[in-house]
């Protein structure tokens, strides 16, 4: 499939010398939902703002449907933008807020009524059209912002932490609403968040960013199961992957500084500085296992538990069934399936394949 949106060697240096985005290449196919994920300061929002036309790139190109748009003003780009804070016009009704982008390009009254009508129905806002934004809940205000971003049927939908100010169930509902609209309309979407759970659940592909660079691009399952470096391994997943560092032995084991030996999933040359990563769901209680420890915390999270165990190689988290609680202070021996581990070099941080 040919790419619809193409960022090439995109770079942004701010006047104070900060390199926010450091030569980014990314290509999205039409209809794809791409999430830019990373901690604050990783360059994800700056990237999005360059695509929207709110920041001018220092160098590099942005092509949409084959056309270079990096130098076009925002209104000439055919994009819909949704911010974390709803940015609605407080003096306008819901209807007029949604209608605003249409009126600003001179749509006639009939068109406006028809398009706004479609959008408010789509987002379940029919009963609120006459209200002012300040009288609405956070979730309703964000739905108005979504409607306004989509009302001109843009070819690209850009969202910057749109769930940021919502809580609990509202977040999940809004997340699903966004994804359903996106699938329904088939609109190419770029979505920015620092929340890995949100990224995993929404994306066709996740772009993990750090320090202005892309660390990994892939479908959520791939990024989760096969992180390319230690940063991704730690950032993606809640709780993070358990990491044990040490050195490979001639016998093909990992020897930790405290003398514990752990099995490796594949043959590795001796004396390499290594980190072994194990997801909490791949850790289990095993009397013959290599890791002896003590339970320090048992967190019930509804459908599962996270059990925190202090071992000689550090804190390990084990995911268990809700009925399998373990009291604080319990002595346990942990094991894991070596086939479900990841392996990294600690000198480069990169995974070993």
């Amino acid at each position, binding site marked *: 499939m040919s790419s619809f949106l193409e960022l090439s060697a995109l770079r942004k240096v701010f006047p104070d010398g900060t390199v926010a985005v450091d030569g980014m290449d990314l290509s999205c196919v039409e209809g794809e939902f791409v999430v830019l994920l990373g*901690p*604050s300061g990783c360059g994800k929002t700056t990237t999005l703002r360059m695509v929207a036309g709110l920041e001018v790139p220092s160098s590099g190109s942005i092509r949409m449907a084959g056309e270079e748009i990096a130098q076009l003003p925002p209104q000439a780009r055919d994009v819909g933008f949704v911010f974390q804070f709803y940015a609605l016009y407080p003096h306008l009704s819901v209807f007029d807020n949604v209608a605003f982008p249409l009126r600003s390009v001179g749509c006639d009254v009939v068109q406006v009524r028809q398009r706004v009508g479609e959008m408010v129905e789509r987002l379940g806002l029919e009963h609120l059209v006459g209200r002012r934004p300040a009288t609405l809940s956070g979730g309703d205000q964000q739905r108005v912002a979504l409607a306004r971003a989509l009302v001109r049927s843009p070819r690209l939908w850009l969202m910057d932490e749109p769930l940021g100010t919502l*809580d*609990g*169930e509202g977040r*999940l509902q809004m*997340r*699903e609403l966004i*994804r*359903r609209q996106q*699938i329904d309309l088939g609109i190419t979407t770029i979505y920015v968040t*620092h*929340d*890995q*759970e949100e990224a*995993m*659940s*929404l994306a066709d592909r996740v772009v993990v960013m750090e320090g202005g660079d892309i660390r990994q691009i892939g479908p*959520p*399952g791939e990024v*989760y199961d096969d992180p390319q470096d230690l940063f991704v391994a730690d*950032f*993606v*997943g*809640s*709780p*993070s992957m358990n990491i044990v560092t040490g050195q490979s032995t001639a016998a093909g084991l990992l020897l930790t500084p405290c003398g514990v030996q752990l099995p490796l999933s594949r043959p590795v040359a001796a004396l390499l500085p290594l980190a072994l990563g194990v*997801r*909490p*769901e791949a850790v289990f209680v095993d009397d013959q296992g290599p890791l002896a420890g003590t339970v*320090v*915390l048992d*967190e*019930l*999270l*509804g*459908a*599962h538990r*996270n059990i*925190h165990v202090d071992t000689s190689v550090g804190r390990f988290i084990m*995911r268990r069934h*809700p009925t399998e609680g373990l009291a*604080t202070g319990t002595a346990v021996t942990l094991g894991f399936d070596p086939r479900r581990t990841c392996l990294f070099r600690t000198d480069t941080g990169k995974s070993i394949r």
Partner: protein
Amino acid sequence: MTAPALRLSGIGHRYGSTVALEEVSLAVDADELVVVLGPSGAGKTTLLRTIAGLELPAAGRVELHGDDVTRWTPAQRDVAFVFQNFSLYPGWTVRQNLAFPLLAPARRATRGVRAAFRVGADTEEIDERIDWAARLLGIERLLERPAELLSGGEMQRVAIGRAIVRRPRLFLLDEPLTNLDAKLREQLRVELVVLRRELGIPMVYVTHDQSEALAMGDRVVVLHAGRVLQEGTAQQVYERPRTPKVARQLGQPAINLIPLRRSAGQWCVDGAEQVPVEVGLRVPDGDQLWFGIRPEAVAVAGGSHEGTVRLVEDTGPGTILLLDWAGQELHLLVDKSRKWSTGDHLAPYFDPERALLWQRS
């Protein structure tokens, strides 16, 4: 039996004509972390402020270790408060921020805070306490840094440090993790629970985040519109919620609530009478029910009626499916043994043993 660390009896509070709290009663034991869970506007912050002495309740009594403190000043109560917004003194170092609660109130008032720092009499003890708190929270290297140069996570650690440094009788925390990044939130959540247990000081922790409530609380109190809807261990409230409203407060995705109607002697989905649902034996009275089933308790096969998968959400260890089924939207939390796609069909089965039933009017 000794008195609980905190006992609230029949607390009522109103702002003008708005009822903020009504008949709230609650006891917190000496070594217990109680989480108050509720949406914004539930009265959580008012409740904490009432305990701290920042609000005088219109009705009811606040007791600390058996003393009626309802009319005591905040300082007399010896409780420590941590707010959502990292409220440190800018321009002061971390050390000065931590020292502040240790300075005698009289000295703070008469000589000004900066002067108070220079008085030597008890500085040795103050330094000891600060070092102890800094070590516990892993902020030793930040002690001489001005507060405004800290990251959000560091600021909140210092704010917690300021609460623990004088070993209060009770901790009160008001959504202290809300403004932090997801990763940091999870990490600090764990640290707080372990730290509190080491200190052995009771804590009331207020949040709107159900995962914090479940993970942290020795007990959870569900507050809604100023009233306590239910209290119990996290497990009790999760497994045996008294009402559909409580059930939806805990768990993500939220519990599926399916409206049922009795017709011709059997229970069917309301609005889809061709879809019968097995409800088990202990059925409440009436002809209309809420049938509650947690997303993790729905089986992906074995039911009599098919639905269509609308969304597939990857959680890492598992998958959330959003299913259109019998006019309802259901969430399923499934493992990754099978790969699902939008448009797939499946016939969900609800084990009646794992369902919750409530009367519906």
